[in-house]
């Protein structure tokens, strides 16, 4: 298929079906798609991991991966490898948007240039997984995300801004934020500002470890409770100033 530009693989069968399928017909042929630009995959991580080592896509520009309910299992060694070998999928300095909702968690990564076309979308049905655990899983799906420089965090769910976190969750959030070494700009949606405030209040001695490269923190004016201002002031005193940007939405 030398001219194939778009490939979508979508499955509904259960994980057990996929395991049986792979058992009976294991992938054994290496395939190069010399012209493939877009790859969409909505299925299980088991199937994805079985396929990825056997395909080469030198020109891939858009990769869309969704894992269905109960069909995301770790580890996934081939996914990061696949992403890192795709020459046109370079994430250093890119923009990422992390979307959390009641039923799913996803992350989109856009290139450094503001083309408006995402290069990568990875998502999964998060079911009963907490927000912080879902975010952690997204980070595990692609350490590549940790190279992004501009990050937007959104939550649109039933709980809205009334999400209640235990201290354990906040500690996990703090650890996740510590891992975002290259983020220069962080935009936080209204439902997460309060949580971010609580995290920042817990920072204490690890002030400089949280988002160490941060230059700008953006959040809706209507939910500013002062914690971000306090954080910014602490960073200024530590000679690592950040700019606070209050938005209308």
């Amino acid at each position, binding site marked *: *298929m*030398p*001219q*194939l*530009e*778009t*490939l*979508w*693989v*979508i*499955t*509904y*069968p*259960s994980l*057990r*079906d996929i395991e*049986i*399928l792979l058992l009976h017909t294991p992938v054994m042929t290496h395939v190069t798609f010399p012209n493939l630009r*877009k790859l*969409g995959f*909505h299925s299980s991580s088991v199937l994805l991991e079985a396929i990825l080592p056997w395909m080469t896509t030198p020109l891939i520009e*858009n990769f*869309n991966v*969704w894992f*269905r*309910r109960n069909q995301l299992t770790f580890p996934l060694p081939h996914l990061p490898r696949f992403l890192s070998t795709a020459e046109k999928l370079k994430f250093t300095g890119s923009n990422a948007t992390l979307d959390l*909702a*009641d*039923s*799913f968690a*996803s992350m989109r990564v856009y290139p450094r240039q503001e083309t*408006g*076309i*995402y290069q990568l*979308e990875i*998502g999964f*049905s998060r*079911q009963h997984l907490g927000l912080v655990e879902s975010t952690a899983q997204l980070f595990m799906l692609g350490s590549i995300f940790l190279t992004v420089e501009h990050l937007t965090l959104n939550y649109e769910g*039933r709980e809205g801004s009334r999400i209640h976190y235990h201290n354990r969750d906040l500690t996990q959030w703090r650890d996740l934020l510590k891992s975002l070494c290259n983020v220069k700009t962080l935009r936080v949606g209204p439902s997460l500002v309060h949580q971010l405030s609580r995290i920042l209040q817990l920072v204490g001695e690890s002030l400089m470890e949280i988002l160490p490269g941060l230059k700008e923190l953006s959040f809706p004016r209507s939910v500013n409770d002062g914690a971000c201002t306090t954080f910014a002031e602490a960073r200024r005193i530590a000679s690592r100033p950040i700019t606070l940007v209050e938005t209308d939405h």
Partner: protein
Amino acid sequence: MLAHSAPLPLIIDDRGRTRGSTNYKEGIKLALQRRDRVRCIRLVMPLQGMQEVIAALDGEYPILSSLYIELSASMGVGLTPTPPQTVGLCASDKFSIAHNCHRPRHSLSCLAPPIRLPLSRSFASSAFARAPARDPLGHHLPLPS
């Protein structure tokens, strides 16, 4: 019919409406034999039917530009029983086709990413209730007609 038709590019577009019936599968296999004419393929069928058709996808397809394969548990019997809630959700979880923003409207846009109908809130927390609602350009895709 294919043997006597003009050698125009072929679009094989099975949206699952025929539920993978034998006659329909045979028609697809015949069309797949015209390898040098097949431009787009979209197959939506259960696993068993899909295996048959995929087996016919043999050899080089020099002009094939888009391939969409969807295994649907809602339209047939898989290898293991399908959980009841999955069946119920799939009935509402149909996809539609959006125009591929990278191509002119008259071109072969039939294989653009699928759109999931937004499920009602009661369903949303219990299933894979969301797939990309936007294409890679970030455009909101139209709902199915």
